[in-house]
């Protein structure tokens, strides 16, 4: 056993270094420092913050970053609230920021420590869920849309109605995210993205009971994997994942569902229980640097709210239909709002239908 442990301990740094690779931005003119111990516990989405960005931060500041991943806002919430102050920096989406502010779980940001906030596009500042950006800074934005392997699917797919048809049974991947799944059904029934109540959930239940048995794979971490491996032919996935597939092979088309789509904004925020808030501020400000933000866009091509970083992107990157869909489509989109008590019934409904979907 001991030899195995030693082997792992020797191999781990090598493996991590191999992941890091990539170019790293040099230190900026004035590198701010913090008086805390050189540690940061980062709790973030899987496949969202590239390793070379984390390594670059450690190299510049000497702060060691411990990363833990989650694959849904709800999962993050349950671990954060049960965790007892383990995490220094989290990455919640807009509606979860709203819930966390309401529950008084977030730390007020020190605006003076975030000099790079100026790069954030005006439309991503002062969003309704956190006016004045007192608690959160946008990291990346994106959409949930339909990704189609056009080699396999020859019929036109424009919306959810075309995805969830019996012809596609066993060929669909969807996000393993109850809130998302319910929102698609709400859009389909024209009930409104955020109008979750007992009555509407009852209305969409038959639809979900028709949809979910058609699904082959539920995956929020990396829905692109099953599409890439050919195990499924189409799916409802994060735009960044679809953009990566498109980069790799143009046969993967991305469509914003005709029934309606929503914009998600993922943010960086500091929990009240954080023990390294200064380090967390340093990390946020580092992420906001245009050249760092560009590295994130290179690895995970979501919609970048950092205007200065977007200027650094190549024309191909900006032309990726999954990363940067037409502006008029984006302005039409709504965002999720916190559901409060109702979120429990969303979780329950989807878990139950998923489980009984056989």
């Amino acid at each position, binding site marked *: 056993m001991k030899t*195995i442990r030693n*082997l792992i301990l020797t191999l781990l740094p090598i493996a991590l270094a191999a992941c890091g690779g990539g170019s790293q931005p040099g230190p900026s003119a004035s590198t701010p420092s913090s008086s805390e111990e050189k540690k940061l516990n980062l709790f973030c989405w899987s496949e969202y913050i590239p390793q070379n960005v984390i390594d670059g931060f450690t190299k510049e500041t000497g702060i060691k970053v411990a990363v833990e991943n*989650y*694959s*849904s806002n*709800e*999962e993050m*919430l*349950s*671990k954060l*609230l*049960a965790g007892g102050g383990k995490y220094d920096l989290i990455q919640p989406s807009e509606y979860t920021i709203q*819930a966390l502010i309401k*529950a008084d779980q977030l730390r007020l940001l020190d605006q003076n420590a975030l000099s790079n906030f100026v790069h954030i596009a005006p439309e991503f500042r002062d969003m309704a869920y956190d006016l004045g950006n007192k608690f959160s800074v946008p990291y990346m934005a994106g959409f949930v849309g339909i990704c189609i392997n056009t080699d396999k699917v020859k019929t036109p797919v424009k919306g959810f109605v075309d995805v969830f048809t019996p012809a596609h049974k*066993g060929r669909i*991947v969807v996000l*393993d*995210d*109850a809130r998302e799944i319910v929102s698609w059904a709400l859009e389909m029934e024209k009930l409104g993205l955020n109008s979750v109540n007992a009555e509407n959930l009852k209305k969409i239940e038959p639809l979900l009971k028709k949809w979910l048995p058609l*699904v*082959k*794979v*539920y*995956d929020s971490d990396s829905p692109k*994997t*099953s599409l890439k*491996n*050919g*195990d499924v032919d189409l799916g409802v996935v994060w735009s960044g994942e679809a953009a990566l597939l498109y980069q790799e092979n143009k046969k993967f088309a991305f469509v914003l569902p005709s029934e309606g789509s929503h914009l998600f904004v993922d943010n960086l925020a500091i929990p009240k229980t954080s023990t390294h808030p200064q380090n967390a501020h340093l990390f946020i400000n580092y992420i906001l640097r245009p050249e760092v933000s560009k590295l994130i866009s290179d690895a995970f091509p979501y919609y970048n709210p950092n205007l200065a970083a977007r200027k650094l992107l190549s024309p191909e990157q900006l032309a990726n239909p999954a990363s940067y869909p037409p502006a008029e489509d984006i302005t039409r989109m709504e965002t999720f709002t916190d559901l*409060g*008590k109702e*979120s*429990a019934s969303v*979780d*329950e409904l989807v*878990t*139950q239908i*998923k*489980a*009984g*979907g*056989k």
Partner: protein
Amino acid sequence: MADATWLDRGGTHAGSRRAGWPAWLLLAPLLVWLGLFVLLPTILLVVTSFSHRDELGRVVYSFTTENYLRCFDPTWLSIFWNSILYALAATVICVIVGYPAAYTIGRAGPKSRRILLTLVMIPFWTSFLIRTYAWISILSQEGLANSLLLSAHIIPGPLSMMYTPFSIVLGLVYNYLPFMILPIYTSVEKLDNSLVEAAYDLGAGPLRAFSRVIIPLTQPGIAAGALLVFVPAIAMYAITTLMGGGSNPTIGEVIQNQFTRARNQPFGAALGVLLMLLFLVCFLVLGRKKNSSAPSA
């Protein structure tokens, strides 16, 4: 023999008086370990299973039995049943595949035996998650298995193997097979060859000798192996999530989901307690069977 006499003498001495404080001292680490990591978590689990939750998913300690009532919904019962079937299938396949392997290893010469045992253990040198991901790239539609079969013209089109009950059972068998081989190997190794020879001398054919002598003598190994495979296989969630794609949920997956994305720890705890009770019943039944069959043997 020397061992046995020593044990006997030790037994009579120790049996005549109560265990003193040195014995308790020696036991202390084990007792502390059991208390901290078995008893305490179990108590927490049971308490949580009778609690409510708030809108953010935090546990509210006020008494309710609704979590248990919900467990008996047909949805969850059918998942329980499916998980038992997957685990049962994995156990049976493990016996069928593992027994010949264990028998061969047990009967091999000392040198090749060591090599064969090492070969059984080698997969443990890498994390089971990495090995499971390897299976994903083998089984996927454009993966290794399909491209080999296609290029050899054995199948007309790619087979859909990933994210099916087949891939779940395969993942379970692959990961738990060593747990079946090792206990059977131990009992095969102890098998007294003269008994097998006696069976032949008394006119038994190979099949009869195997079914009437070898199998009963190695039965403790099979039972231990079956338990070591069946019990963890029911509750396994990592392999089943990765290889089942979430559309063939198992009870382990459902419980894990309740603690994470569904944010319903009390309900997850209730399912967990029921699962533990199920194991307890399994053990009691197996134990009773052993006792009742002992006199007749």
